[in-house]
């Protein structure tokens, strides 16, 4: 199973992700801001990042660019409340794009797909 960094500014959402992904056997580390995420990325090695676009006073897309620039081998899934960012060029840098939903099947499927691709 994989070590996943979840970046979201909502406490409850981080908790939900942590529980759901842990249920699937993943090791989940969470970050509430881009700064915290950057620190954790510097100290740890992750297999994948699940990233929200709208963080408090910060843009997840900026963090995405930074990750792609510095750790281009690390896959990132954007998981957001906004479907409109799919058309944003910056969002195309991500390996996956999932619209937030109470049914996390799509996110889990996307994680599975990307990890399998990475393993190949």
């Amino acid at each position, binding site marked *: 199973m994989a070590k996943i960094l979840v970046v979201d500014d*909502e406490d*409850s*959402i981080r908790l*939900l992700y942590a*529980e*759901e992904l842990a*249920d699937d056997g993943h090791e989940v580390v969470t970050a509430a801001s881009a700064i915290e995420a950057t620190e954790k990325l510097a100290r740890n090695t992750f297999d994948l990042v699940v990233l929200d676009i*709208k963080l408090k006073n910060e843009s997840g897309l900026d963090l995405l660019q930074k990750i792609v620039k510095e750790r281009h081998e690390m896959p990132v899934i954007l998981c957001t*409340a*906004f*479907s*409109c960012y799919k058309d944003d060029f910056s969002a195309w840098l991500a390996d996956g794009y999932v*619209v*937030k*939903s*109470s*049914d*996390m099947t799509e996110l889990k499927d996307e994680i599975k797909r990307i990890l399998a691709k990475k393993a190949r």
Partner: protein
Amino acid sequence: MEWECCWAFQEIAPEGCPYIAEGEEELYTAHKRRVVEKCLECPRFRNDLLKFRELGYPLATIIPFIVEEFIDQKTRLQSMGSFLNSKTREIRFLHELNVVLQTSLDLDEILSVAMTAITAGKGFGMNRAFLLMADKERQFLKGYLGVGPRNYEEAWQIWSDIGQNDLTLREMARNFQKTKLASEKVKFQDILDQLSIPLANHKHIFNRTLRDKKPVLIKDAFTNQDIDPHLSELLGVDSFLIMPLISRNRRVGLIIADNCITHKPITTHDMQLMETFTFPVAFALERASLYERLQEEVGKLTVANEKLKEQQELIVKMEKMALVGRITSSIAHSIRNPLMIIGGFARSLLKTASESDRNRKYLESIVREAKQLEDVLEEVLGYADSLYPAMDTWDINQLVTSAFDKIKERLEQKGISWRFDAAAGLPMAFIDYKQITFCIKTIFNAVMETPGISLVSLVTRLEGDDIVVEILDNGLAPPWNADEAGLPDSAFEELGRNLGLPLCKAILEKYGKPLLIEKRPEGGTKYTITLPIRKEGE
């Protein structure tokens, strides 16, 4: 003394002089006028003078000299008067012509006046005239208009019509423009086509005339070495005039005039007279064509202005779009996150709740309602996203394939078979990509909620000027049909909780063809979307 002539009488009776005509009765009593106007040229008076000489009157020998000189001077005076009258008529005619040529900006009006002036009896009285004009690119001299009769019968008809109506030149030109200009253009088209020559052909008589800027009177055309035999044969006359139309050193065109019916000789005087007329004609023609070009440019500028205005409106619209985008983003963020948390935790709890747990049904209810709210939110946000369409040409088969890609997986998961019959060679549709993608996805969402489906078919085809997309299922059909009048209100409730189909209806109505939902005779439902294609010039 008995005198033969009446010169000696102050007054005479009506039979006193046979040379006083009707209307000249005043002369019976006007002695001086009668002597000057009648007696001096009367044979009887000459007989009386002979009698004077026979009688030996000394003045009798010189009076005939005086009389002869008087008659001579009188004749010359009359001739000069007649010459002056004719010049006055010419000046009046040229003035009338110039007024029209100087004031008109309408090419057809100028052509009508010029050609009428050449061919009308009140004008230069030529039988026939052709106008050749340099094209816009200054590459060719092209036959533009011919005026006059083609044969004796037609000439007779035209001249008798003119004889019956005493019209001014301007009136004649106006009549010509109204009733004959278009037909005259066609009438001589065969000759006009053959008169056209390249301006680079320097040896041709037309180009030589334009270069010399002087009219040429061609005589003996059939034997003249300077004239192309084909030209003489084409015109069918031995003598014709070629008049260059030059304005500010620019070659505007030329006029060929002849007397093809009467064969009246064309004189140098005719040529000189017409030369005075060609300059204002050339100037007026050039001015009118410049004006026409100016109008074209103004037209282009107007179109450009309209486009600019559209762009400005688009910018305003895009600002509104940005506002709508910000609002929908805010809604998405404010509603989707709490929904995800509520629904997500309910799902987590549900996973651990046993079948006998009394809270299970509450958790199931929370999960279901949260999902429903998420679906509604997705549809509303999708619709908001399509509120400001970006119309463009799109390949409908590609759009449908792309929209269908994710739906295929869901169909397969539910064990529903599918087939896609895409028509080959469809023209491009003129649509907003997001709107139509939204409609197709929404219809599929509705299809997948319909019970009893085992097969879904997707068909594209061309129907007249439209592209038709049909989505057919074999499930339980709704108890109503939606025709051109649109979906019945009850359908919205029947369709269940989704807002999607009514939103599709609103979108497709803007394309002019409503969403059709029909029961299939063999069972199931047919959803029809009709989309416009991009037409030429749109």
